[in-house]
């Protein structure tokens, strides 16, 4: 049972459709506004510049969606989770819609670090002839410096390729799905879109990803 004096609400929401193109900062601002619209009794930090006590889960890159994204909201008093959820839903847009809310221990690790393993589903608009070839390393540019990442350090298991059912996600052009799991490290992480952009089919062609979605986050 959670501490009755502690009202730390963990909310699960989706990021989908066009809103996949929002940045982490834009998502954060939009969620804060949804919390205020919902009229929830959110806590406010003390200090020179008071702000809502809200913490966001691990960031998604611009262009990548998610079905189980998280934020933690500190409330000043108890509101039944189902009521809080209903209020948040009434204050949210469809493509950034909360789907669950529950109280968590105040000692629970922050949503941003609690779930380092993410499973992604990429919907492909062309079937990779001869399977998917994963590179050993990926070169990324960070703060104007080139950095080489060893894919094996981040990729857990294999990429699973499957034929898509007709009309997958309402999009007839999607012919295949690629499922893979990446682990983020304290030293850094490999972005799913970057990994895919560096994968090829058997003939050396880059993959045609229609969408990329985070479908699970685990500890």
């Amino acid at each position: 049972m959670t501490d009755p004096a502690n009202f730390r609400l963990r909310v699960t929401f989706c990021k989908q459709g066009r809103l996949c193109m929002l940045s982490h900062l834009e998502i954060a601002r939009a969620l804060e506004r949804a919390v205020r619209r919902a009229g929830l009794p959110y806590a406010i930090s003390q200090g020179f510049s008071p702000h809502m006590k809200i913490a966001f889960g691990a960031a998604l890159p611009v262009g990548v969606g998610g079905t189980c994204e998280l934020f933690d909201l500190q409330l000043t008093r108890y509101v039944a989770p189902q009521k809080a959820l209903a209020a948040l839903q009434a204050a949210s847009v469809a493509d950034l819609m909360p789907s669950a809310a529950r109280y968590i221990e105040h000692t629970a690790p922050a949503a941003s670090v609690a779930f380092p393993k993410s499973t992604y589903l990429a919907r492909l608009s062309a079937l990779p002839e001869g399977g998917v070839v994963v590179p050993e390393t990926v070169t990324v540019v960070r703060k104007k410096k080139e950095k080489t990442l060893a894919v094996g350090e981040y990729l857990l298991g294999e990429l699973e390729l499957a034929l898509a059912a007709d009309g997958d996600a309402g999009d007839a052009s999607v012919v295949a799905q690629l499922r893979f799991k990446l682990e983020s490290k304290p030293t850094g992480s490999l972005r799913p879109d970057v990994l895919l952009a560096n994968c090829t089919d058997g003939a050396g062609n880059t993959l045609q990803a229609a969408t990329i979605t985070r479908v699970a986050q685990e500890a």
Partner: protein
Amino acid sequence: MREHLTNLWPQVAPLVAAADRPSRYIDHEFGAVRKPDADFRFCMVYPDTYELGQPNQALRILVNAVNARPHLAAERGFIPAPDMCDALRREGLPIFSMESCAPFGEFDVIGFTLAHELVATNVLEALDLAGIPLRATDRAEDDPIIVAGGPCAYNPEPFYLFIDAFSIGEGEEAVPDALELIRQLRLQGASRADILRALAAQDGWYVPSLYRLRDEAAAQQAGSWLEPAQPGVPDTVVKRIYEGFATSPGWEPCVVPYAEVVHDRLSVEVLRGCARGCRFCQAGMMYRPVRERSVRNIVESVKAGLAHTGYDEVSLTSLSSTDHSRIAQVLEQLNCAFAGTGTRISLPSQRLDSFGVDMAGLVAGQKKGGLTFAPEAGTQRLRNVINKNVTEDDLFAAIDAAFAAGWRRCKLYFMIGLPTETDEDVKGIASLAQRAYDRAKKAVPPEQRGNIRMSVSAALFVPKAQTPFQWDGQIPPEEARRRAHLLRDSVKYKAVDVHWHDPATSFVEAVMSRGGRLAAEWVETAWKRGARFDAWTEHFNEQAWRDAADEVGLDVEAVAQTSYEPGYVMPWAHISTGASARWLAKERYRAAEEITTPDCTFGACSACGACPGLESGNVLAALRVAAGSNAVGDGVSAGPPEACDGAASNARPSRRNPYISLLAIEDDCAQENAVPEPHGFGEGGGPQ
């Protein structure tokens, strides 16, 4: 009128994904409205990018006003950033609206808000990206009708080639009325020409193609450069005002953007108009008479607006919010209602003479950003010329109050190149800023004095149409640079820094502000030579404008820099704000004699002509009292405002000025302090 709009999103999406800041283009914000069942569609375009356009008040107001009518739907439109404009051209795709992601060309009517002179080439960029002929005369029956309004419509001539009809004045009623008229005529199968003729007969609509240009002699004789070419077309187009403004709710729905925009907060318009009468100021002439909303209306609007949008900041907007007769009560009630919620309440324009100790206290509960004041001129002589009725003591008192209340940064706005300015006036700016700094230092504890920053921002005077200074030329750019350097060199304090803009853009503004019909060809040619996004320093293409002037044979120096005798008939004489040309000329003569004219909302009418001409008047929440005193709350002094003295009467005229009436008592005196409970969780939050 089309069956439905094409959704371009599938084609546009890959470009958006690759663009700088995709959130500019995705729509789907909280508050965005769709009306798929409407059969007549209007696209309201702000001619710059989303970040600048989305917060625009005219856009919000007009989209709401149009959507409120049956059959009509309004969507928003913006100019894609340069990278996206280029991408659309590369892919052969047209510019698109927000809500339906539909081509501009499929709308029945497109409206542009001409917020400032430098948006002109972006209007052409939008038309070109839409595949709509740039010139009104080249448009086919099926092309959208292009309308425009906003400040630049008060001298519409530099746009006359491109715009089918201009809406002069406030559009809350004028725009939806006109759209309904056009819809009816379209349903009856009327031609484009018939529709434009019908529009020209409506109050406040100017259809440039229905006028003939006179030569100079004839224009001076007739009092206007333009002559109606057909019967039923008015000689002079007088602006429309929205009579219901004061009693209409200050809260109306708005879109809450994802992208970081320039004014990312709720705005509640507390009053419209300003009768201070600064002689350079177009807004002060454009929005007369003054209309205040009641305390209750404002307070309830802020509460409702914050609850509906989820913003944590509200700006009480107007040209001069501290002039509101009951601003202190508004601030007291809001401070009380939102104490401890982290909500910020800001006043965008601080009047020097109404920012006293009380006002500093009332906006002091907040995080203190920079404070801005606009003395505009460095000496009392020049302030008298421009009718900026503030003194050095007003400035120093405001500085004392602000720095004692905790502010540490202050920005002072000035103009250089004002009519009659001498080097002494320029040096006076430096002297005033330095003395303001000395005052700030005295008001601050010694250990914090190192944090004090005073900055001076000097803009080049741009003569604006419809003002007493419309006859005064702008100083040449070289002279502007000399005076800016004189100012910089006259400032000796390290803690006082001086900023100014390059005069090249102000020069283009002056030509646009004062140009006649030939200026439209100049704009078109400049755009063809690559000018667009002129308000963006990094995109401003001076050479394109210079070359365009040579090509069309426009003496741009003469347009910007020639001074005329007050009374000379200017190219916009057929457009009226209600303030008469005779009064403007009289004001110009008074300027020459350094005689000031008082604000009519504080006392006697100064006979500008707006109230009788528009059959209207100033509407105040309470009588305004001597400078500064509006900032004193109830129970302090300054007496009970008349609206609350018990003698309830609707629109009671003032004894001092027949054109002042007061809001009825039942509209005012709100005392409710509770934050609304939209979903039943009580107060929106509290410190823990």
